[in-house]
Protein backbone atom coordinates (compact mmCIF):
# COMPACT_ATOMS: atom_id res chain seq x y z
CA UNK A 1 0.00 0.00 0.00
CA UNK A 2 1.31 3.40 -0.98
CA UNK A 3 0.74 6.54 1.01
CA UNK A 4 1.70 10.20 0.65
CA UNK A 5 2.08 12.73 3.44
CA UNK A 6 1.89 16.37 2.35
CA UNK A 7 4.29 18.77 4.01
CA UNK A 8 3.22 22.42 4.14
CA UNK A 9 5.38 25.22 5.50
CA UNK A 10 4.66 24.92 9.24
CA UNK A 11 3.56 21.27 9.27
CA UNK A 12 5.13 19.56 12.27
CA UNK A 13 3.50 16.15 12.54
CA UNK A 14 4.46 15.08 9.02
CA UNK A 15 7.44 13.00 10.10
CA UNK A 16 5.52 11.38 12.99
CA UNK A 17 2.91 10.35 10.43
CA UNK A 18 5.67 9.03 8.15
CA UNK A 19 7.01 6.88 11.00
CA UNK A 20 3.54 5.59 11.87
CA UNK A 21 2.58 4.72 8.29
CA UNK A 22 5.86 2.90 7.66
CA UNK A 23 5.62 1.03 10.94
CA UNK A 24 2.38 -0.59 9.80
CA UNK A 25 3.48 -1.40 6.28
CA UNK A 26 2.75 1.60 4.08
CA UNK A 27 5.33 2.64 1.51
CA UNK A 28 5.20 6.32 2.30
CA UNK A 29 6.38 9.33 0.32
CA UNK A 30 6.71 12.87 1.61
CA UNK A 31 5.25 15.39 -0.84
CA UNK A 32 6.05 19.12 -0.79
CA UNK A 33 3.10 21.54 -0.93
CA UNK A 34 4.46 23.34 -3.99
CA UNK A 35 4.56 20.16 -6.08
CA UNK A 36 1.80 19.87 -8.63
CA UNK A 37 1.55 16.13 -8.92
CA UNK A 38 0.60 13.56 -6.36
CA UNK A 39 2.56 10.30 -6.50
CA UNK A 40 0.43 7.20 -7.04
CA UNK A 41 -1.18 6.66 -3.63
CA UNK A 42 -3.76 4.53 -1.87
CA UNK A 43 -3.91 7.05 0.95
CA UNK A 44 -3.06 10.75 1.20
CA UNK A 45 -2.51 12.30 4.62
CA UNK A 46 -2.64 15.99 5.51
CA UNK A 47 -0.66 16.11 8.76
CA UNK A 48 -0.92 18.23 11.88
CA UNK A 49 0.99 21.40 12.56
CA UNK A 50 0.61 25.09 11.91
CA UNK A 51 0.61 25.45 8.14
CA UNK A 52 1.37 29.04 7.11
CA UNK A 53 1.54 30.02 10.77
CA UNK A 54 -2.27 29.67 11.05
CA UNK A 55 -2.53 33.03 9.25
CA UNK A 56 -5.99 34.32 8.33
CA UNK A 57 -7.79 31.13 9.46
CA UNK A 58 -6.15 27.83 10.33
CA UNK A 59 -5.69 25.82 7.14
CA UNK A 60 -7.03 28.52 4.81
CA UNK A 61 -3.73 29.21 3.00
CA UNK A 62 -2.73 25.56 2.77
CA UNK A 63 -6.11 24.71 1.25
CA UNK A 64 -5.20 26.90 -1.75
CA UNK A 65 -1.69 25.53 -2.26
CA UNK A 66 -0.62 23.90 -5.52
CA UNK A 67 -0.63 20.28 -4.37
CA UNK A 68 -4.13 20.65 -2.94
CA UNK A 69 -5.62 20.88 -6.44
CA UNK A 70 -4.34 17.34 -7.04
CA UNK A 71 -5.47 16.21 -3.58
CA UNK A 72 -8.98 17.57 -4.19
CA UNK A 73 -9.16 15.81 -7.57
CA UNK A 74 -7.89 12.62 -5.94
CA UNK A 75 -10.56 12.86 -3.22
CA UNK A 76 -13.33 13.66 -5.69
CA UNK A 77 -12.46 10.57 -7.69
CA UNK A 78 -12.83 8.41 -4.58
CA UNK A 79 -9.24 8.47 -3.24
CA UNK A 80 -8.70 8.07 0.50
CA UNK A 81 -7.69 11.37 2.09
CA UNK A 82 -7.21 11.75 5.83
CA UNK A 83 -6.58 15.08 7.57
CA UNK A 84 -5.33 15.08 11.15
CA UNK A 85 -5.60 18.20 13.33
CA UNK A 86 -4.30 21.01 11.08
CA UNK A 87 -4.99 18.58 8.24
CA UNK A 88 -8.66 18.54 9.34
CA UNK A 89 -8.64 22.34 9.38
CA UNK A 90 -7.25 22.28 5.81
CA UNK A 91 -9.96 19.82 4.73
CA UNK A 92 -12.80 22.00 6.00
CA UNK A 93 -11.28 24.99 4.20
CA UNK A 94 -11.27 23.05 0.91
CA UNK A 95 -14.91 22.15 1.47
CA UNK A 96 -14.14 18.43 1.11
CA UNK A 97 -15.74 17.93 4.52
CA UNK A 98 -18.48 20.23 5.85
CA UNK A 99 -18.25 22.72 8.70
CA UNK A 100 -15.45 24.75 10.31
CA UNK A 101 -13.13 24.53 13.31
CA UNK A 102 -13.41 27.49 15.63
CA UNK A 103 -11.21 28.62 18.49
CA UNK A 104 -11.57 26.29 21.50
CA UNK A 105 -14.46 27.31 23.71
CA UNK A 106 -12.35 28.25 26.72
CA UNK A 107 -9.61 29.91 24.63
CA UNK A 108 -6.91 27.53 25.78
CA UNK A 109 -4.53 25.33 23.83
CA UNK A 110 -5.48 21.77 24.79
CA UNK A 111 -2.84 19.06 24.86
CA UNK A 112 -3.95 15.78 26.45
CA UNK A 113 -5.20 12.26 25.86
CA UNK A 114 -8.90 11.89 25.16
CA UNK A 115 -11.31 9.06 24.48
CA UNK A 116 -13.32 8.96 21.28
CA UNK A 117 -16.23 6.74 20.37
CA UNK A 118 -16.43 5.38 16.85
CA UNK A 119 -19.80 6.43 15.45
CA UNK A 120 -19.67 4.70 12.11
CA UNK A 121 -17.84 1.58 11.00
CA UNK A 122 -19.23 1.32 7.49
CA UNK A 123 -16.10 2.89 6.02
CA UNK A 124 -12.53 1.95 5.25
CA UNK A 125 -11.10 3.87 8.20
CA UNK A 126 -12.90 2.14 11.06
CA UNK A 127 -14.30 -1.05 9.54
CA UNK A 128 -13.24 -4.08 11.63
CA UNK A 129 -11.88 -2.07 14.56
CA UNK A 130 -12.91 -4.23 17.50
CA UNK A 131 -12.98 -1.44 20.05
CA UNK A 132 -15.87 0.98 20.31
CA UNK A 133 -13.74 3.50 22.18
CA UNK A 134 -10.20 4.56 21.35
CA UNK A 135 -7.74 6.63 23.35
CA UNK A 136 -6.06 9.26 21.19
CA UNK A 137 -4.08 12.42 21.79
CA UNK A 138 -5.25 15.93 20.98
CA UNK A 139 -3.16 19.10 20.77
CA UNK A 140 -4.93 22.11 19.31
CA UNK A 141 -6.17 25.63 19.77
CA UNK A 142 -8.87 25.57 17.06
CA UNK A 143 -10.72 22.27 17.31
CA UNK A 144 -14.18 23.49 18.19
CA UNK A 145 -16.27 21.92 15.44
CA UNK A 146 -19.13 24.03 14.15
CA UNK A 147 -21.53 23.90 11.21
CA UNK A 148 -24.88 25.34 10.22
CA UNK A 149 -28.12 23.62 11.24
CA UNK A 150 -28.73 22.55 7.64
CA UNK A 151 -25.23 21.06 7.43
CA UNK A 152 -25.69 19.26 10.74
CA UNK A 153 -28.93 17.72 9.55
CA UNK A 154 -27.22 16.52 6.38
CA UNK A 155 -24.23 15.18 8.33
CA UNK A 156 -26.49 13.25 10.68
CA UNK A 157 -28.79 12.00 7.92
CA UNK A 158 -25.78 10.61 6.04
CA UNK A 159 -24.13 9.28 9.18
CA UNK A 160 -21.03 11.38 8.47
CA UNK A 161 -19.90 11.77 12.08
CA UNK A 162 -16.81 9.56 12.42
CA UNK A 163 -15.91 9.92 16.10
CA UNK A 164 -17.21 11.79 19.15
CA UNK A 165 -15.39 12.83 22.32
CA UNK A 166 -16.51 10.60 25.20
CA UNK A 167 -15.34 9.07 28.46
CA UNK A 168 -13.48 5.76 28.72
CA UNK A 169 -16.77 3.86 28.64
CA UNK A 170 -17.98 5.60 25.52
CA UNK A 171 -20.42 7.96 27.22
CA UNK A 172 -20.83 11.05 25.02
CA UNK A 173 -21.57 13.97 27.33
CA UNK A 174 -20.83 17.66 27.59
CA UNK A 175 -18.33 17.12 30.40
CA UNK A 176 -16.16 14.99 28.10
CA UNK A 177 -16.14 17.63 25.37
CA UNK A 178 -12.70 19.25 25.56
CA UNK A 179 -13.19 22.15 23.16
CA UNK A 180 -16.87 22.98 22.76
CA UNK A 181 -17.38 21.00 19.55
CA UNK A 182 -20.94 20.69 18.32
CA UNK A 183 -22.34 17.28 19.41
CA UNK A 184 -18.86 16.35 20.75
CA UNK A 185 -17.72 15.88 17.15
CA UNK A 186 -14.02 14.95 16.96
CA UNK A 187 -13.98 13.78 13.35
CA UNK A 188 -16.22 13.69 10.31
CA UNK A 189 -16.37 12.16 6.84
CA UNK A 190 -17.44 13.49 3.49
CA UNK A 191 -20.64 12.01 2.13
CA UNK A 192 -18.85 9.13 0.39
CA UNK A 193 -16.66 8.43 3.47
CA UNK A 194 -13.38 8.35 1.56
CA UNK A 195 -12.33 11.63 3.18
CA UNK A 196 -11.85 11.76 6.97
CA UNK A 197 -10.95 14.81 9.03
CA UNK A 198 -10.27 14.45 12.74
CA UNK A 199 -8.64 16.48 15.49
CA UNK A 200 -7.04 13.56 17.44
CA UNK A 201 -3.60 12.27 16.46
CA UNK A 202 -3.54 8.46 16.04
CA UNK A 203 0.14 8.71 15.02
CA UNK A 204 1.00 9.71 18.58
CA UNK A 205 -0.37 6.44 19.99
CA UNK A 206 1.70 3.80 18.24
CA UNK A 207 4.19 2.89 20.92
CA UNK A 208 3.44 1.56 24.40
CA UNK A 209 6.55 3.19 25.83
CA UNK A 210 5.47 6.61 24.61
CA UNK A 211 1.75 6.95 25.23
CA UNK A 212 -0.42 4.07 24.18
CA UNK A 213 -1.28 1.79 21.32
CA UNK A 214 -4.77 2.63 20.17
CA UNK A 215 -3.16 4.36 17.19
CA UNK A 216 -1.55 1.02 16.31
CA UNK A 217 -5.02 -0.55 16.21
CA UNK A 218 -6.16 2.19 13.90
CA UNK A 219 -3.26 1.96 11.42
CA UNK A 220 -3.09 -1.86 11.39
CA UNK A 221 -6.77 -1.95 10.61
CA UNK A 222 -6.55 0.82 8.02
CA UNK A 223 -3.89 -0.91 5.93
CA UNK A 224 -5.85 -4.18 6.08
CA UNK A 225 -9.00 -2.42 4.92
CA UNK A 226 -7.15 -0.92 1.97
CA UNK A 227 -5.68 -4.20 0.76
Amino acid at each position, binding site marked *: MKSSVITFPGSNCDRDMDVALKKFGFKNKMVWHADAELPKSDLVVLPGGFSYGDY*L*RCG*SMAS*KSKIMRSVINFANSGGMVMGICNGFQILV*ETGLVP*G*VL*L*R*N*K*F*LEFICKNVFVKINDKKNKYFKNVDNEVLEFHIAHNEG*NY*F*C*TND*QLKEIEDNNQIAINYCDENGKIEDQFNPN*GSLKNIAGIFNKEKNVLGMMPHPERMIDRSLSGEDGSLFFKNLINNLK
Partner: protein
Amino acid sequence: MKISVIITLKKDVLDPQGKVIHQTLDGMGFQDINEVRQGKYFEIDTKETDNDKAKAKVEEMCKKLLANLVIENYKIIDPK
Protein backbone atom coordinates in the same frame (compact mmCIF):
# COMPACT_ATOMS: atom_id res chain seq x y z
CA MET B 1 -7.16 52.03 -5.68
CA LYS B 2 -7.54 50.98 -2.07
CA ILE B 3 -10.50 48.88 -1.05
CA SER B 4 -11.28 47.91 2.52
CA VAL B 5 -13.03 44.80 3.71
CA ILE B 6 -14.48 44.08 7.11
CA ILE B 7 -15.08 40.47 8.10
CA THR B 8 -17.35 39.72 11.02
CA LEU B 9 -18.58 36.53 12.63
CA LYS B 10 -22.19 35.67 11.86
CA LYS B 11 -24.72 36.36 14.59
CA ASP B 12 -25.16 32.76 15.74
CA VAL B 13 -21.46 31.92 15.91
CA LEU B 14 -19.90 31.91 19.35
CA ASP B 15 -17.13 34.52 19.71
CA PRO B 16 -15.16 33.59 22.84
CA GLN B 17 -12.55 36.30 22.18
CA GLY B 18 -15.23 38.97 21.95
CA LYS B 19 -16.72 37.64 25.17
CA VAL B 20 -13.42 37.88 27.05
CA ILE B 21 -12.83 41.40 25.72
CA HIS B 22 -16.33 42.30 26.90
CA GLN B 23 -15.61 40.91 30.38
CA THR B 24 -12.30 42.75 30.55
CA LEU B 25 -13.87 46.03 29.51
CA ASP B 26 -16.53 45.43 32.15
CA GLY B 27 -13.81 44.96 34.74
CA MET B 28 -12.16 48.18 33.62
CA GLY B 29 -15.32 50.09 34.39
CA PHE B 30 -16.95 50.21 30.95
CA GLN B 31 -20.11 48.68 32.28
CA ASP B 32 -22.74 49.71 29.75
CA ILE B 33 -21.66 47.32 26.98
CA ASN B 34 -24.24 44.92 25.57
CA GLU B 35 -21.88 42.81 23.50
CA VAL B 36 -18.43 42.79 21.85
CA ARG B 37 -17.81 40.93 18.59
CA GLN B 38 -14.29 40.69 17.19
CA GLY B 39 -13.65 40.81 13.44
CA LYS B 40 -10.97 41.35 10.82
CA TYR B 41 -10.11 44.32 8.63
CA PHE B 42 -8.26 44.21 5.30
CA GLU B 43 -6.93 46.95 3.06
CA ILE B 44 -6.40 45.81 -0.49
CA ASP B 45 -4.44 48.06 -2.84
CA THR B 46 -5.27 47.02 -6.39
CA LYS B 47 -4.03 48.15 -9.81
CA GLU B 48 -7.61 48.09 -11.09
CA THR B 49 -8.87 51.64 -11.74
CA ASP B 50 -12.52 50.87 -12.44
CA ASN B 51 -14.55 51.08 -9.26
CA ASP B 52 -17.10 48.40 -10.06
CA LYS B 53 -14.57 45.96 -11.48
CA ALA B 54 -12.33 46.39 -8.44
CA LYS B 55 -15.25 45.78 -6.09
CA ALA B 56 -16.29 42.68 -8.02
CA LYS B 57 -12.75 41.29 -7.80
CA VAL B 58 -12.58 41.93 -4.07
CA GLU B 59 -15.94 40.27 -3.62
CA GLU B 60 -14.53 37.18 -5.34
CA MET B 61 -11.50 37.30 -3.01
CA CYS B 62 -13.83 37.43 -0.02
CA LYS B 63 -15.79 34.41 -1.20
CA LYS B 64 -12.74 32.37 -2.13
CA LEU B 65 -10.27 33.18 0.65
CA LEU B 66 -10.76 36.15 2.94
CA ALA B 67 -13.99 34.96 4.57
CA ASN B 68 -15.30 31.54 5.45
CA LEU B 69 -18.97 31.91 4.61
CA VAL B 70 -20.04 29.17 7.00
CA ILE B 71 -19.24 31.44 9.93
CA GLU B 72 -18.34 34.87 8.58
CA ASN B 73 -19.91 37.79 6.72
CA TYR B 74 -17.93 40.28 4.67
CA LYS B 75 -18.58 43.93 3.94
CA ILE B 76 -16.75 45.80 1.21
CA ILE B 77 -16.27 49.49 1.94
CA ASP B 78 -16.69 51.73 -1.09
CA PRO B 79 -13.31 52.90 -2.39
CA LYS B 80 -12.64 56.59 -2.02
